[in-house]
């Protein structure tokens, strides 16, 4: 019962949130919402122990696919978003053939190379990808009304509600997968692939499954982004963006579902709001880099370990049983 109340309060808070923000902060909130899906899907991939440097390009695949489906074929935008996700997942399945011959550091760099090739293809083939300038004038999400609220998707608040709804559904699915026997198998593949295989787990199939699901959701995130900004180009998905996603996940901590999300929120707010408000326009990379180093040195298990410590203390104080141990995994 109290759990429901917590969720209700959170929902109301999230609904009210944009109304307490300035216009540019609302814009940032939209991008933040989309990025939450990017890191959360990235985490699903890392459950199997593989760290990819191609996730952002896969997100771009979703963005390009959705943009082209709506632009060239005139398909209704929310449908193209789903198709974008599916395309991204299919590309991931194709990529899995060369990539899953590699592991660890080789996979990291192999995924980087594969995604650079995709990016070069976007640049090289001006038709249909628009070359180095990418695609612009992407159809926006068509406005509509649900009676109590009129969605005008130019306004960040509207798009925040819309993308927030989609992202919430995606997060729920990701969460269900992680907590299911499938999720447990992903963990097993990560920690001892040999033993998992001896227990009858088809390693290739599970690695590919995780890669495809993660990519599908990244593709949806990319589509959400494309139809909001209205333009995409190969540079929007380059390795520097990937480095940000990677650091969100690691600084946030990857032991829990919420760790990467936390990392994404905290670092984005720091970089896009706090540092800009403080007027550190051109010093931002310096400070951001220093904060990253300090956080990893002093919180090696990520920001999530702070939350755990805090909630642990409270739980210890209230009810001295350790039932939460399983849930923390």
């Amino acid at each position, binding site marked *: 019962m109290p759990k429901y109340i917590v969720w209700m309060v959170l929902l109301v808070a999230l609904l009210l949130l944009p109304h307490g923000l*300035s*216009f*540019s902060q609302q814009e940032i909130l939209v991008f933040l919402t989309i990025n939450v899906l990017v890191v959360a899907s990235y985490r699903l991939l890392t459950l199997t122990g593989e760290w990819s440097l191609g996730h952002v390009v896969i997100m771009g695949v979703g963005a390009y696919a959705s943009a082209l489906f709506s632009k060239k074929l005139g398909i209704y935008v929310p449908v193209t978003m789903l198709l974008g996700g599916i395309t991204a997942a299919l590309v991931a399945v194709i990529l899995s053939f060369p990539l899953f011959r590699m592991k660890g550091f080789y996979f990291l760099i192999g995924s980087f190379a594969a995604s650079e090739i995709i990016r070069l293809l976007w640049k090289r083939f001006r038709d249909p990808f628009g070359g180095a300038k990418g695609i612009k*004038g992407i159809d926006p999400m068509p406005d509509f009304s649900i009676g109590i609220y009129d969605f005008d998707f130019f306004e960040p608040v509207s798009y925040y509600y819309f993308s927030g709804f989609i992202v919430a559904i995606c997060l729920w699915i990701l969460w269900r997968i992680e907590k299911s026997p499938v999720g447990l198998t992903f963990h097993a593949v990560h920690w001892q692939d040999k033993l998992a295989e001896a227990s009858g787990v088809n390693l290739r199939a599970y690695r590919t499954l995780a890669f495809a699901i993660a990519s599908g959701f990244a593709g949806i995130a990319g589509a959400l982004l494309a139809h909001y*900004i*209205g333009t995409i180009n190969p540079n*929007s998905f380059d390795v520097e963006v990937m480095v940000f996603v990677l650091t969100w996940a690691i600084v946030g901590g990857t032991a829990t579902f919420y760790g990467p999300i936390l990392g994404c929120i905290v670092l984005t707010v720091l970089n896009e709001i706090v540092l800009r408000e403080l007027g550190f326009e*051109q010093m931002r990379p310096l400070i951001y880099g220093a904060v990253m180093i300090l956080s990893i040195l002093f919180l090696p298990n990520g920001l999530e370990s702070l939350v755990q410590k805090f909630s642990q203390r409270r739980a210890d104080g209230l009810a001295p049983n350790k039932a939460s141990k399983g849930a923390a995994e």
Partner: protein
Amino acid sequence: ADKTIKIGFLAPLTGAVAAWGKPGLDGCQIWAERVNAAGGIKLGDDSYTVELVSYDNEYDPAKARTGATKLIREDGVSFIMMLGGDTWPGVQPVADRTGMLFSTLLPSDLSPDTATLFAPTEVHPIYLVTGVEWLAENRPELKTAVMCAQDDALGLPSVATYLAAFEAAGIEMLDEPLLFDPATTDFAPVVTRLLSKNPDIVCLDTCYSDYVHPIAEQLFQQGFTGQIISATADFYDQMIAKTSKEFMEGFIFQFPDFDDPALNGDNINFEDPNGFYATYNERHPGQWGAVSWEYASIMDLWKAAAEKAGSAAPDAVAAAMKEGGTGNHAFGDAKWWGTELFGIDNALVGDWPVVVIQDGKAVIKGFRSIPDWYDKHGDLLVKHMQAYDQMWDQRS
């Protein structure tokens, strides 16, 4: 003047493209100081101090959108200067909604839907034809050329333009244009390839100075002695140091030093170019380049239009700016133009200088009219632009 007008500066200030934004912001700051010291901007009976508000868009369309929203809705700016390029399409919906007036350095952003976007300074790459025209007139013995450019949004239209200009001038291309990856650092292979055809002319297109310098050095070291033509030659004194005065003699490009006496002529609309150049070099030694003055010259144009309109309101300024179809371009009065190439007449095109290195110093050899060239050879330009998918209706 106790009232202020805010001007937005929305360009990359950090990251790999910062060189296209940061020096421009520095230049604008100098411009603002000079204007404010001279009593500010006079609209009607009031004078206003100018204040620049900058936002670092990191050359990312999403951040540019956020920045535009902030500058317009929170800071209340009257005008926003952008580098443009990748970032403009992200801002365009905001521009449509708010009617804010924007400027870009990259006219390929223009299209029939961009009613409030202007390209008032550098109409890249169309001015490049003037250099070729001058070359053909003054060195008619040079008959063959090769060219190279980085494979990006600046390189491709520039390749198309030079191809048109060479064709118009009767100069033969010995090879397909060589496109290289923007991340290239070692240009020896590129130059080896170029020189393998024994050309009279090597054209460097709109290579950034990061490329022009090492390419020139390689040309020198691999024994080239012919003519070089390029859009820019920022820091040419350093190129001379790396090669030789003889090698660089006669190098043609299109961006003068602002201490050039030819800029003191009456036709020039840029306020006190010599003084501006001196102040800039004093404050930011070694950072001068085309961007340094281009944003400031846009401010000149804007200031004139606003004072004429007696208002800083975007639509009033826009109207005043375009009144009569002509405007005060830095290098002389010019006309609003561009329907054929861009689908809209929002590019200010007139004369452009041809600069040649003589005795180790850049010298303006004259101003040439771009529209005149276009009237004669426009079809060639359109043909080559189309071949590279660079016409406005080909850009998705």
